[in-house]
């Protein structure tokens, strides 16, 4: 049975550090008002601002357009920054988006990625400390809410929740009820009763194999983001792995198949073209000649030509 604790109350005899507790003489004390369950050792703060963590899905409002991207209001003490690099379409101020926290710096600069615009639907704001109750264990509560109201629900860790569906109002009321009563015992039963869900149905709903809401919404008309200019987190590697193709005339990679083992590719310039022409004119396979010239890519054109003619076997098929 959980009981209400106030700042300064002793929670545990061992040190546990988190934003809502403090440690003094190897003991843990409550720093905010919350419900503490001594049996399970669980402490649920009743109020608290959202503290961003890497990997959180958050819902925010585009507040301003900057040179590097967008300033996002996350309803937290800190603003989010969304780089416009790699975006398929621009956002406008007051757009509501769901994004992921990709980086939180030492000085609380928050970088966001994978943005997705939310259109229509309804947004409600609850205490960020109660988001875990809206989702439930293994997102059981969220699955029940979705199944019982037939709504799409996206939950931001910062306490903003997007709801769209036929019985939107019912879902809003249910989530507001969770927000109000999260600290009182028997929450699940009361929500079941409110939604008119029987306990036996509930087990089935909660165990429905569902993709995460983020993924399922992404499929609707959203293409997977592919960096044209393989940036840091795009998975195409840097310049040395052929990911960055911006600073010469070749442009972005067109095929996204597996590249296989890394091979040295000769810079495509006039020297190589010359070597290729000479090589093929001598009756050798063009490929061999190219490979041969690549072995001496940094040598001047004339010497490369002669190397291609005299020692084709040595240079062929050399990989780095």
């Amino acid at each position, binding site marked *: 049975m959980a009981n*209400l604790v*106030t*700042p*300064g109350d002793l929670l545990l005899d061992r040190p546990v550090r988190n*934003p*809502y507790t*403090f440690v*003094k003489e190897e003991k843990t*004390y409550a*720093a*905010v*008002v919350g419900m503490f369950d001594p049996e399970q050792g669980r402490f649920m*703060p*009743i*109020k*608290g*601002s959202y*503290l961003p963590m890497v990997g959180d899905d958050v819902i925010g409002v585009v507040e301003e357009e900057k040179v590097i991207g967008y300033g996002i209001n996350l309803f937290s*003490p*800190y*603003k989010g920054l969304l780089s416009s690099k790699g975006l398929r379409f621009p956002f406008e101020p007051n757009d509501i988006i769901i994004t992921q926290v990709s980086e939180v710096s030492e*000085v*609380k600069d928050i970088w966001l990625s994978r943005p997705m615009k939310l259109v229509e639907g309804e947004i409600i704001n609850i205490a960020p*400390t109660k988001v875990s109750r809206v989702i439930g264990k293994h997102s059981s509560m969220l699955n029940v809410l979705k199944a019982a109201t037939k709504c799409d629900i996206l939950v931001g860790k910062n306490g903003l929740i997007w709801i769209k569906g036929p019985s939107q109002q019912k879902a809003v009321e249910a989530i*507001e009820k969770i*927000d*109000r*009563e999260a*600290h*009182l015992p028997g929450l699940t039963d009361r929500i079941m009763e409110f939604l008119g869900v029987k306990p036996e149905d509930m087990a089935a709903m909660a165990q429905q194999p569902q993709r995460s809401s983020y993924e399922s919404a992404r499929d609707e008309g959203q293409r997977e983001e592919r960096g044209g200019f393989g940036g840091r987190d795009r998975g195409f590697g840097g310049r040395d792995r052929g990911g960055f193709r911006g600073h010469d005339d070749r442009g972005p990679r067109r095929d996204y198949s597996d590249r296989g083992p890394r091979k040295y590719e000769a810079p495509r310039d006039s020297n190589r073209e010359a070597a290729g022409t000479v090589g093929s004119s001598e009756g050798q396979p063009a490929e061999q000649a190219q490979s041969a010239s690549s072995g001496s890519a940094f040598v001047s054109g004339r010497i490369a030509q002669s190397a291609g003619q005299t020692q084709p076997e040595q240079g062929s098929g050399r990989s780095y």
Partner: protein
Amino acid sequence: MIEVKDMGTPSEQPLIVGGKRLDGRAMDEMRPMTIKAGVLNRANGSAFLTLGRNKVMAAVYGPKEVFPKHETDPYKAVVRCRYLMAPFSTDDHGRSGPNRRSREISMVIKEAFANVVVAEVYPKTAIEIYIEILESHGSTRVAGLTAAAVALANAGIPMRDILVGVSIGKIDGQIAVDMQKEEDNFGQADMPMAIKPTTGEIVLLQMDGKMTREEFEQALDMAYTKVDEIHDMQVAALKEYFDRAAAMPQDVE
């Protein structure tokens, strides 16, 4: 009636009559106190406190962005405090806005709370405390501080303790708790204090007037007897708020 210009000097009229104080209290008796948490919708946390005729509203905003930007601390939150007496809070109508006295009180209350707020949790932010004295009748700074502590807890700001404010004084040669206006103005000493109830540490202590060492010790002892009483009322107010918030159909911020 007593002349105001004689403020601080021992009065002609007795402040203790037949062992009782002017309002009939015993020496170690506080005025009746009520606290209600969560009274403002737009603030992150708030509290309304009455202590006898005193009426105090405290509001807490934050953690939020710091303006002006150069006051930002990259390692911890900045705690700010504004204590203001409403122009209509006293017997004679005052001037509005901050003055020398209210700026000093704002500063000492801010420094008291800087001792208990776990500011490292929210670096680069500001936590703002506003204390408005709507009606004053002595000991407003400790009443404001007690209310602000409830408002901070109500806002969910991490704190090491809920601060308790209590005032002690000397009237007609005797030590008494919770000074009211006449006792404050015409008594021999007035000593507002803020104490951390769980550890008993003192985070604010000011004194006007004179006391002997023995009287000072006696005053401290008397203050400590009242700390638990006030702290229990603060906790009860917070508990009442969360019960009320759960029962209300509309969300209570």
